[in-house]
């Protein structure tokens, strides 16, 4: 499978990365080179093989149902959470208008 400029533009839009025409054109052969190379995975017989998501068998734990069990990941840290926000107003993240 290979991609053309329209497809790259669609992927870039899905990925929310603005790209000018020249950049899209540059990406087409680069992405096709990579995609063509990964095609070889199609040769591998994977009959009966389960896709691997977690490499070391490990079960997901549940934490104790305690509020603020770890203060670093608990609540009450609004100032810290907002400290790096490009725009913070009235204790919230500021964003451009979403609803017209």
């Amino acid at each position, binding site marked *: *499978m290979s*991609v053309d400029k329209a*497809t*790259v533009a669609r*992927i*870039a*839009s*899905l*990925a*929310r*990365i*603005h*790209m000018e025409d020249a950049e899209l054109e540059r*990406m087409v052969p*680069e*992405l096709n*080179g*990579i*995609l063509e*190379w*990964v095609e*070889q*995975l*199609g*040769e*591998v017989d*994977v009959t009966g*093989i*389960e*896709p*691997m*998501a*977690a*490499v*070391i068998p*490990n079960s*997901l*734990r549940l*934490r104790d149902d305690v509020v603020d069990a*770890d203060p*670093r*990941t608990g609540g009450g*840290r609004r100032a*810290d*959470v907002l*400290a*790096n*926000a*490009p*725009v913070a107003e009235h204790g919230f*993240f500021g*964003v*451009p*208008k*979403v609803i017209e």
Partner: protein
Amino acid sequence: MTDLTQLGVKDIRDGVRDGTFTAREVAESLNAAVADAAALNAFIVTTPDHALAAADAVDAARASGETLGAMAGVPIGMKDLFATNGVQTTAASHILEGFTPRYESTVSQKLWDAGAGMLGKLNLDQFAMGSSNETSYFGNVASPWRKDGSNQPMSPGGSSGGSSSAVAARIAPAATGTDTGGSIRQPAAFTGICGIKPTYGRCSRWGVVAFASSLDQAGPMARSVEDCAIMLGAMAGFDPKDSTSLQMDVPDWEGALSADLRGKRVGIPREYRMEGTDQAILDSWEQGKAWLKDAGAEIVDVSLPHTKYALPAYYIIAPAEASSNLARYDGVRYGLRDLPEPGSGAGASGSGLQDMYAATRAAGFGDEVKRRILIGTYVLSAGFYDAYYTQAQKVRALVARDFERAFEQCDVILAPTTPTASFPLGSMNADPLTMYLNDVFAVPASLAGLPAMSVPATINADGLPLGLQLVGRPFDEQGVLNAGLAIQQRAGFAAKPEKWW
């Protein structure tokens, strides 16, 4: 007086404990060495005050008779992928420029708790995506090594290139690294130092900027196997804040180090004899077998039939996870925000949220990061998911099964770390694929989550270092370290880069 910058982790720790020198003297020497090495561009920011404060705390603790930690008095470099409280953390990207965490990553906190101090935040490939340290927004890192008779700047490897450059240049006794597909081992090999990626889950990922979460793993980079064992012990351990953290005790790796390999079987994977591998690398591999045999091990042939497919599988899985992880950089909560003027450029009709996302990410990510996000988005998109992503996950299962079967016949695997020695900066950028191929020997162990280490073996005809790689069973860091120690003792690698910076 001893030049304290030449000492490794163990010698500094022991010297501080025994009162041969103070932690402050060590920190001052290394701060000065860091300040004098700007030409390497190994650090994005330096933090001399952090190193001094940690040193003073250690000296005070010693004076009052307290027991000192495993890293007491050792100032280290911190890869700028670890969140450090109050110190800019960028992942070498523009999108995180100026981001100053209000929390500390688990791994860095453990190191400070063990008495280490921070010399600064080390440069790396942007979001750890790269194998040459040429994708950083803050400029390339130069290796302290150069080819004999040449002053061409060489790659320190990547993504932990600031770490490898600093440790090899003796401006840091040790540094943290992270390894997703070889990012500790390949730079270690390129610069003649040691680096170990432990079993996936040994070191907490909490507070580490995520690239590919099912692969990312932190580890130490230092100039000896002993130093790696000490530092890994300080970094590892269960962390309830990381859902994939291993709930296991941390063994005393340093205490159990032994280069006596009698009764051990070392596997030589025949599929690693690949075209395009330097003859000098193949020769050093032969030498490595002889060294391990001399240490008492039996050498056995093993087969890892899916080796060839590990790299293409990695270049689906890692970008897929990256495209998902990097979705968080949206210009809302932290980092860069680029809001186009209404009616101009990106968002012609009045700059909404979507325009802000697209413009922020266009301005904030470098080319390699964008390329991988696009690949990842594509392979996860409707219609292609099974053909690419599911297939790659199945191949990953086969790569892991290959190792499982090989470890029925051997205890540790010996292979080259890289197919070539370091290359000049700028020489491999024509095609992204060429760069990817540099990780061909490193990626299989990453996909299988196995502990793997690079140790320096020799130098090639150009005077550049070559590394050998050891891969162990899950949780058997000890077996990897022990085989590494056996090589270290026999290789007697003493070459150092000549100071030009």
